[in-house]
């Protein structure tokens, strides 16, 4: 009796294994926490951990939020104080003494040779004046016609005046009767006026006034509107965002008449300031979402935001995740569609890529065409894309696991033909697959950089010749070449290029899992991936909420895109204010 019980007490080896099983995740989690805490010290990102929208779980997925938050709050207290110190330096202002002001302006712009000064006399009174402008950014024709000529020719406004009028009425006369410019601002700050000059405005300084006129004449070189390269469609508007923020906002406005479209302007970047516009539709979007986005935008404290990708990385929920939690797009129609679903978008000056948030997994596999075409083809294409995405993720992994672990699970004839074609291949399947996968990734990357006329040619050389030669040389099996080619093509059928990259990159992990644990490894990789996606949130909205929704009606716009007649609700996971699209 006693013996039979002691027989079940686990031995030392089992205890050691248990210890290993215990220690590995502990170490991993510790490292993760350390990384997060360090990151929390380095920036104000930690403050986002407060986000409570959606499932009600804080958006940061690990514990240790408390430390992070406190660090961040400490940091945040420091930030404004430094800013105010900067401001406390005596700001230079215009004095009203023409020569002195001109001199000071020349001094502060001494090391900027592209700032030009044009001196002139105003009208019949012959008031001394100076016009500051920038080579290249200022519209010189417009300036000559609408500012210089009227100023110099101004006779009628000054009729009956022998002495210069007082500054206030002079200002009024100039604005109301002389300059032919719609954007006029005033400032007495030298810094401010210089900043405006550097951005293309013309600044007018007139004797006796301690304020200057900022006249909007900026006209930088902009691209004309073109079809977006990264998201081409067969059907749909052929219009893409450009680098000019005002053009981009105009495109959204021109989409249709709507008084609810809000555009909130922010300035980001500590050293190089840029304009950023948060846009949403007032009656639809959830206020909590806007508060959260605004809060996160305020945490950006980088010196320069070069592209909207900076914003994306600085405000996303989990930077350790391989999946993008904010969607970038060049298409105004895509942005409008997202806004109407109750999402928000960010436009940044100087980039044609707008950001849409929050994002769910399903959106990465959807294309605007799904809605433009009839529901039937839209739904079929979506299914195709889902299938392609899973192929691009799992096909090589399945090849490895079936060939090296369970050839018995494949149909006998197929197994025999694969095996016979693999005869003479000197490598294990993993190495074989890695060789081909990596070379095709190299081809893709090289094809991207190559000049346009060479690109396709190199693709053919790479794809066909190398594939053919590798098979003939006996390095890889022809079946594998098929698998790799199908995989590569499938990964490009994902409408979002960056999502395609994620899938391709995860494919290598799947291959390693398959090489160590076979089919079991692939299943566990799938479970791991699902667990990660399930826990992932984008602005508090669960990333997988399309697949595992709380409301069944959300499924109407997931794999199957139901006819528009039946799509009556906006996605409920975004908790929009106006739930119905259609009555």
């Amino acid at each position, binding site marked *: 009796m006693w013996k039979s019980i002691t*027989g*079940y007490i*686990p031995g030392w080896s*089992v*205890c050691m*294994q*248990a*210890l*290993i*099983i*215990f220690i*590995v*995740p*502990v170490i991993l*989690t510790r490292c993760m926490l350390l990384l997060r805490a360090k990151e929390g010290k380095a920036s104000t990102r930690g403050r986002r951990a407060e986000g409570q929208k959606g*499932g*009600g*779980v804080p958006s940061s*997925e690990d*514990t240790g939020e408390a430390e992070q938050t406190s660090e961040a709050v400490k940091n945040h207290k420091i930030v404004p104080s430094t800013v105010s110190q900067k401001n406390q330096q005596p700001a230079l202002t215009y004095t009203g003494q023409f020569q002195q002001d001109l001199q000071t302006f020349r001094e502060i712009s001494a090391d900027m040779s592209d700032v030009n000064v044009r001196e002139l006399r105003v009208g019949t009174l012959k008031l001394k004046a100076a016009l500051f402008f920038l080579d290249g950014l200022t519209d010189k024709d417009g300036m000559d016609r609408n500012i210089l000529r009227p100023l110099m020719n101004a006779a009628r406004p000054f009729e009956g005046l022998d002495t210069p009028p007082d500054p206030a009425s002079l200002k009024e006369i100039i604005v109301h009767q002389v300059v032919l410019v719609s954007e006029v601002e005033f400032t007495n700050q030298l810094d401010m006026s210089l900043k405006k000059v550097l951005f293309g405005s013309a600044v007018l300084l007139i004797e006796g006034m301690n304020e200057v006129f900022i006249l909007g004449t900026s006209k930088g070189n902009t691209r004309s509107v073109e079809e977006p390269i990264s998201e081409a469609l067969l059907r749909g508007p052929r219009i893409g965002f450009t680098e000019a923020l005002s053009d981009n906002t105009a495109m959204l406005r021109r989409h249709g008449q709507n008084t609810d479209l809000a555009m909130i302007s922010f300035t980001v970047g500590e050293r190089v300031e840029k304009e950023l516009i948060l846009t949403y539709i007032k009656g639809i979007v959830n206020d909590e979402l806007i508060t959260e986005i605004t809060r996160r935008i305020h945490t950006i404290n980088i010196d320069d935001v070069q592209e909207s990708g900076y914003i994306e990385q600085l405000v996303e929920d989990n930077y350790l995740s391989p999946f993008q939690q904010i969607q970038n797009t060049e298409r105004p129609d895509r942005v409008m569609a997202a806004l109407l679903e109750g999402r928000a978008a960010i436009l940044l000056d100087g980039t044609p890529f707008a950001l849409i948030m929050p994002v769910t997994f399903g959106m990465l596999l959807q294309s605007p065409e799904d809605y433009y075409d009839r529901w039937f083809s839209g739904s079929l294409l979506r299914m195709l894309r889902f299938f392609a995405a899973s192929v691009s993720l799992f096909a090589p992994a399945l090849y490895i696991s079936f060939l090296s*672990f*369970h050839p018995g*699970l*494949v*149909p*006998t004839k197929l197994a025999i033909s694969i095996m016979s074609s693999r005869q003479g291949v000197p490598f294990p399947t993993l190495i074989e697959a890695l060789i081909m996968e990596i070379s095709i990734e190299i081809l893709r990357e090289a094809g991207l950089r190559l000049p346009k006329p060479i690109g396709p040619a190199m693709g053919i050389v790479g794809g066909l010749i190398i594939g053919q030669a590798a098979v003939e040389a006996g390095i890889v099996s022809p079946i594998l070449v098929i698998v790799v080619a199908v995989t590569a093509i499938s990964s490009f059928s994902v409408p979002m290029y960056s999502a395609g990259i994620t899938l391709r990159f995860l494919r290598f992990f799947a291959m390693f899992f398959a090489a160590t*644990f*076979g*089919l*079991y*490894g692939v*299943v*566990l990789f*799938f*479970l*791991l991936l*699902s*667990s*990660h996606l*399930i*826990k992932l949130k984008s602005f508090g909205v*669960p990333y*997988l909420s399309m*697949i*595992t929704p*709380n409301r069944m009606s959300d499924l109407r716009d997931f794999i199957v895109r139901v006819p528009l007649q039946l799509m009556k609700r906006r996605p409920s996971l975004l908790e929009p204010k106006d739930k119905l699209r259609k009555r």
Partner: protein
Amino acid sequence: MITKAHDKITTSQATIIMVNYILVAGIFSLPRTTVQAAGTPDVWISVILGALCSMITGIIIVRLSQRFPGQTFFQYSTQITGKPVAVLLGLVIIGYFLAVSGYELRTMQEVTMFFLLEGTPAWAVAGLFLWVALYLCRGGINALSRLSRLVAPLAGAIFFGVCLLSLKVFDLDNLRPVLGEGLAPVWRGIQPTALTYTAGEALLFLVAFMDKPKRAGRVLVIGTLISMIFYLLAVVLTIGAFSVEGVVTRTWPFIDLIRSFEVNLLFERFESLLLVIWIMQIFCTFCISFYGAALGVSQIFNLKLDHCLFLLLPVAYIITEVPHNINNLFAFGTGLGNWAIVLFGLIPLPLLLIAYFRRAGS
């Protein structure tokens, strides 16, 4: 008390969790265990009756949990029986949850090592599984329900598809005569279904997370009925294909059933598909019971749930490795079933009565 009170699940989420929790490893061996006990092909009646029995005991647990809205069993049992007894009872239930998770993991390990991975060390198979499970469980009950939601349709579709194909080898005569030896074998057959059907215990903590606890009864009934369909299909089809004698001699009769026919489609044989979804299904069940155990420890000893999940990881592994061989494992399973009958069939009723007379709860 470390509970994420805001971590709520809806009724349908709870139902999905129930289905995934009930549908366990048992489906592979259920045809054999029941037929061994009954000896006649009438075990499908036992499967139905077993579901009804488990519903009755489950209802008592639901009533009990509904008296204390927002509280798990580990929290409210102190109000019913006082601290010492409650802690003891809580520990026994935690032990049960751990044992269930260990049993599930071991079954998965055995099936995997037998059909998929010969020669891979067992601890590596279990270790990977445990780590992924830990990663999921840290996401809380919502993550569990979402994974269940993700897996369930997949599992259902493949299961029914495979069952449909297995009609090729189905022979109705193997199921006859109905009630040839009276009702006695049917009664004997109910007892082995206990392990596969024990569902009520998940409700001990599940009800606390529901946003509408009033519907817990519906969750139990629908959950049990859905999983009953799966079991019923498995039992009927297996016996129909192999007859009573054939079923008894096979270790995993249901997998053998799927292996026994070939269809010239893409795959020819379908046990790989079935194994894939069943690993996922077992993963769900494991996570749910493991989460239940960790929740219990955290609430009884006032620890962080996260820490409990880590602490229980090696314990679950050791329990997994306790049975020496597959016969031990089946004995372990039967023992668990009996344990479940005592624990969740007999104890909740007195608790409910005590709670009623002491006017504990609402």
